[in-house]
């Protein structure tokens, strides 16, 4: 019986991906651990490894195919002793045009189950039949739900079919909304009319309201109506405002779509407010110089490390979060998650977008460890080689535009983070000290807070703790 290779879920939320490249051809032999294909998700390019041995008998989804749903059959491996030529894709396999079953396959009545049934596999099929092909099958918090064939709560990701009511499908189609992007609240996660209507009103791709709890709660007089959010203009409407030929159309890649979706969601659903503060940097610059000067040299004569101001900012924010633990939190719809460690995201600009890899337990790490980790992750981010778990989670992030000379700015919170710190350029400024003008090095930082988790005074407390660490940086070393 041929082995099915299904589109893997590289992260718990992944619903589809692009099949970027096949690294094996039909007829090639594969063994466990061989990288057979590259898959591009919204943010990263991932390698798909084989876990079984055999001959790559049939590529069902050709390379370059976009938006292949998770769990769709992408290829077949002929097992040992099986004639690769007799392996055919099932007629029902979605995506690519699958050839009709060949005569010899049909002529094997002894094995009626020979035709793989992707549907059955995805629902309750052989648990090791597919998902393990992905190198990444662990979400940061443990095994990815989608990686478990029987995993509950991820009905969207469990098959190549989107379960939606006919009415929901029609309303979505007419509104030009991709129904696969909508979280269903109906039976077994089915997308129903009200889910689509909610999505059209904005923010509908968020998880449905939490189930009712056992404890009786006072009856609300009626649910407050979802706020009516403005619809953005459609492509045709926007294009109509410009002369034809006066622009170039750039199709959206996965990262751009994700950025757009997440940040619209953030601005529409997260009540932002902003707190700005100036931090003097003289002590920090002196300490940094001292530390960097003390770095040993490797055999090429390069220093072993070179700390940036941003490394100090990450460390200071991490420690500040430990000192003001109430601010180290994220909003989770019907509850708040208070984090134990300081997992700090670092915004990294890359060609065509940005990533926010997360430095975990940054409060425990040394400055040199943080520096090395950020450097490594930033480098891999630029090549789009970050693993999904490297850019998920965290309760806050640092966005630094100081190198461009930006004095101060307000950053958009990256959900579900509770805050984000926007860091401006360090510069010489004249300040009044003891009644007389003095020149100091200073930078302006602005903390964007999600008011649902971090109130004004709490945000101010966090920022004050941060300033104290930046201005007395030895505190970070002890």
């Amino acid at each position, binding site marked *: 019986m041929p082995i099915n290779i299904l589109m893997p879920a590289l992260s718990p939320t992944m619903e589809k991906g692009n099949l970027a490249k096949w690294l094996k051809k039909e007829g090639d032999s594969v063994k466990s651990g061989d990288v057979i294909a590259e898959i591009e998700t919204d943010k990263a390019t991932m390698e798909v490894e084989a876990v079984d041995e055999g001959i790559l008998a049939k590529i069902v989804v050709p390379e370059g195919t976009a938006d292949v749903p998770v769990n769709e059959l992408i290829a077949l491996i002929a097992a040992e002793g099986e004639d690769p030529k007799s392996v055919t894709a099932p007629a029902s396999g979605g995506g690519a045009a699958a050839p009709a079953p060949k005569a010899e396959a049909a002529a094997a009545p002894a094995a009626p189950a020979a035709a793989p049934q992707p549907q059955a596999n995805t629902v309750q099929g052989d648990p090791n039949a597919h998902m393990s092909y992905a190198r990444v099958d662990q979400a940061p918090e443990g095994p990815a739900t989608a990686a478990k064939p029987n995993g509950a709560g991820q009905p969207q990701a469990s098959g190549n079919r989107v379960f939606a*009511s*006919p*009415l*929901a499908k*029609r*309303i979505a189609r*007419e509104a030009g909304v991709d129904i696969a992007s909508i979280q269903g609240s109906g039976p077994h996660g089915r997308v*129903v*009319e009200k889910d689509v209507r909610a999505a059209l009103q904005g923010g509908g791709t968020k998880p449905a309201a939490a*189930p*009712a*709890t*056992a*404890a*009786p*709660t*006072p*009856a*609300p*007089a009626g649910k407050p109506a979802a706020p009516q959010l403005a619809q953005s203009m459609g492509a045709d409407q926007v294009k109509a405002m410009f002369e034809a030929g006066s622009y170039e159309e750039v199709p959206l890649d996965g990262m751009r779509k994700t950025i757009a979706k997440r940040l619209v969601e953030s601005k529409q659903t997260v009540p932002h407010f902003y707190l700005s503060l100036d931090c003097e940097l003289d002590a920090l610059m002196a300490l940094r110089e001292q530390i960097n000067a003390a770095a040993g040299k490797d055999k090429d004569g390069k220093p072993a490390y070179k700390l940036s101001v941003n490394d100090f900012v990450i460390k200071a924010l991490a420690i500040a979060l430990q000192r003001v633990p109430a601010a180290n939190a994220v909003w989770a719809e019907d509850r708040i998650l208070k984090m134990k460690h300081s997992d700090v995201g670092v915004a990294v600009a890359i060609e065509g977008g940005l990533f926010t890899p997360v430095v975990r337990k940054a409060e425990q790490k040394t400055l040199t460890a943080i520096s090395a980790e950020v450097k490594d992750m930033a480098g891999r981010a630029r090549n789009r080689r970050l693993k999904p778990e490297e850019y998920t989670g965290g309760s806050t992030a640092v966005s630094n535009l100081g190198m461009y000379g930006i004095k101060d700015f307000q950053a958009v919170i990256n959900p579900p983070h509770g805050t984000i710190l926007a860091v401006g350029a360090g510069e010489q400024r004249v300040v009044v000290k003891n009644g007389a003008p003095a020149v100091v090095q200073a930078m302006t930082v602005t903390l964007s807070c999600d008011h649902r988790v971090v109130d004004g005074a709490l945000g101010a407390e966090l920022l004050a703790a941060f300033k104290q660490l930046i201005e007395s940086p030895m505190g970070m070393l002890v």
Partner: protein
Amino acid sequence: MANQYDIIVIGGGPGGYVAAIRAAQLGFKTAVVEREHLGGICLNWGCIPTKALLRSAEIYHYMEHAKDYGLSAQGIGFDAAAIVQRSRGVSGRLNGGVGMLLKKNKVDVIWGEAAISKPGEVVVTAPKKPAMQPQNPVPKGVLEPGTYAAKHIIVATGARPRALPGIEPDGKLIWTYFEAMVPPAMPKSLIVMGSGAIGIEFASFYRTMGVDVTVVEVMPQILPVEDAEIAGLARKRFEKQGMKILTGAKVTKVEKGANSITATIDDGKTTQTITAERMISAVGVVGNIENLGLEKVGVKIERGIVVTDGLGRTNVPGIYAIGDVAGPPMLAHKAEHEGVICVETIKGMHTHAMDKAKIPGCTYCNPQVASVGLTEAKAKEQGFDVRVGRFPFIGNGKAIALGEPEGLVKTIFDKKTGQLLGAHMIGAEVTELIQGYVIAMNLETTEEELIHAVFPHPTLSETMHESVMDAYGRVIHI
């Protein structure tokens, strides 16, 4: 503790006993408090015994029309007492059945009248209300009055006939459904005040049995909640059967004779008096919210209805309300469904409030009337641009073969989305047919799925198919 329960349900009607059984299934220690009859009004004095009476009337009607089918029947007649006896027998059997079901599910039955003394406590006293006669025997093994504790108390006390001032039922000349259900003999003439489901079913029963029936309805149409077109057709059929119908007319005064009643009826233009042997007051029902201690524990009540959050929860934690006391539509199937939702909510399961727009309504007069969803007028009122389909029974082979060529199926779609907004039927067996549209609406089908579905031939259900096709200009048999 013996007197300690997880859930106590006050009222053993269709809402209460179903809630109790569901609660027991979910592992709750459950009791039902009942003062008069398990199965409530529905089973003892409503839905069920009227169906038994109407079945007798239906067969009598067929016997009278035996010649139409090539049959001969002589000496056709009836024994009113035997018809009533059969009806009571049907109720008695089901009443016993409810007792068995509760026992099987280990639900305790406490016999008496309950009042909530404080949240978590119910005091049961001996029944004060004299039971309607004939009463089914009190089930064996019921628990005695006393004080009982329960974490959750569900009020499911149902409703009773509404009385109009000056025209209060006296049980002798002015009947409610109680007396109308067990007539000692057929009256010669009858005034039925109110033409909702209860009024029209009795009017239809008594008219078929040869009674001179006058229906007085204050609204402009009979069956006021039904689609105007269907109600109009019903009226024509009733009038053809010899029923007198006055709409937009109000009984302003009644004068009682020794064995007759004279009603003064004002239709806004003229005033007339009609004398009949008996009168049935069928002007709706009101919830039984009194003497339950609800005010004492602070449960919010508005216009005689206990305010709930749609999942059965009142404003007082631990106190719930379902069925008639929780508001219209006051129908057994709505109460049952609410009971299940309420208990599952207590269990912490993921529940949704019922969509009241999708609750079907059935009236078992001759011809039967059944509907679900919006009437044409209501749909337009809500701003829908509608497509309306109609298909008469005369175009249906099975209807002709049955000798029931009079009937109509009307369907209402949203022109924009193809959503089935409402379905309205009149004719033979439509009360058994309506569930097809109920399922369709709950699955959010559009006209497309309904058109593509294969309906069995020859059945009355084909009229449902054709009506949909008519809405889209594709009807075949007309």
